[in-house]
């Protein structure tokens, strides 16, 4: 992802710890849609994505002094967003744990019930295939395939080596192919 002038200026404000509520509005303006869609791809329903996205920006505001400029601002924000979305899923899984479905069927059911989802059978099948992947592989696949991020960027977000990410992405590809072939 190419660093824009806007992002450079925001990074400078964060590293100099000069992020006032007024400047933070600019952060929200620049990143809200990217964060929302990243979160939505993980939690799937709009209601959950809305809650998590708001929490993500509150967390960014609270932790703003922790950004040290060692990574890019967007990878730091994506890291917070990814972790919070996964945390949200874990909490929900513990709340509505079903040993038979392992949560996949529950989440597909919730997605179908979402007013703001109108995907066809192919989309549902794909989402179901994604949900069968282990958490790490799913995250690597989503960041690489949907967000089209570089491995180096994903490495900073997921705190995993590039080699391990490449292996995870390969395994995720193979599993998805096998799953989709089996259900066809």
């Amino acid at each position: 992802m190419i660093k824009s002038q806007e992002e450079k200026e925001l990074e400078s404000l964060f590293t100099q710890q000069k992020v006032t509520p007024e400047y933070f509005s600019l952060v929200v303006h620049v990143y809200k849609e990217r964060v929302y869609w990243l979160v939505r791809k993980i939690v799937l329903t709009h209601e959950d994505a809305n809650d998590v996205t708001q929490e993500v920006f509150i967390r960014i505001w609270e932790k703003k002094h922790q950004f040290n400029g060692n990574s890019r601002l967007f990878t730091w924000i994506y890291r917070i967003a990814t972790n919070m979305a996964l945390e949200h899923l874990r909490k929900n899984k513990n709340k509505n744990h079903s040993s038979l479905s392992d949560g996949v069927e529950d989440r597909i059911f919730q997605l179908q019930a979402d007013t703001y989802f109108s995907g066809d059978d192919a989309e549902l099948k794909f989402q179901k295939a994604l949900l069968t992947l282990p958490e790490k592989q799913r995250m690597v696949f989503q960041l690489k395939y949907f967000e089209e991020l570089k491995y180096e960027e994903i490495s900073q977000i997921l705190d995993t080596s590039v080699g391990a990410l490449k292996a995870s992405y390969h395994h995720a590809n193979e599993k998805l192919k096998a799953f989709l072939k089996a259900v066809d």
Partner: protein
Amino acid sequence: MDNKKYIPGFDKESFQVPDGYFEQLSKNIEQKIAEESTPPIRSVNKQLWSVISIAATLFIGFGIWWLTPASTTTSSASIATSEIIESGELDDLLLQQEDAILALVEEQPLLHNEDLSFEEISDYLIQEGVSESDIYNYLESY
């Protein structure tokens, strides 16, 4: 391998948001940030009431202390004692106290009566718990 040939992908036409959602999202976040940045009115009130309560307690306590006569007397007495010690009047006071004790002793017939026999005194001391050997040792010393 190009995954997009066989995977439908995340289609934003399948995943929608309400109309004007992102504008509202900004407002909601900014509102929450503003709330985070300023302490809630409730806690300010709570702090204010705590300060008022402490101040009122101290004021009432001071008022009671100031108006109670006993505390004033104690204060005067302690000042008078220190003045007496400093001016050397303490010795005079002790002498007066000694005279008062002697006068009291003279009023006690038992202690003052010189007609008591040794047996009577001895019986009295034994009744008071003094051992006979102590009485004997005391007489031996004279």
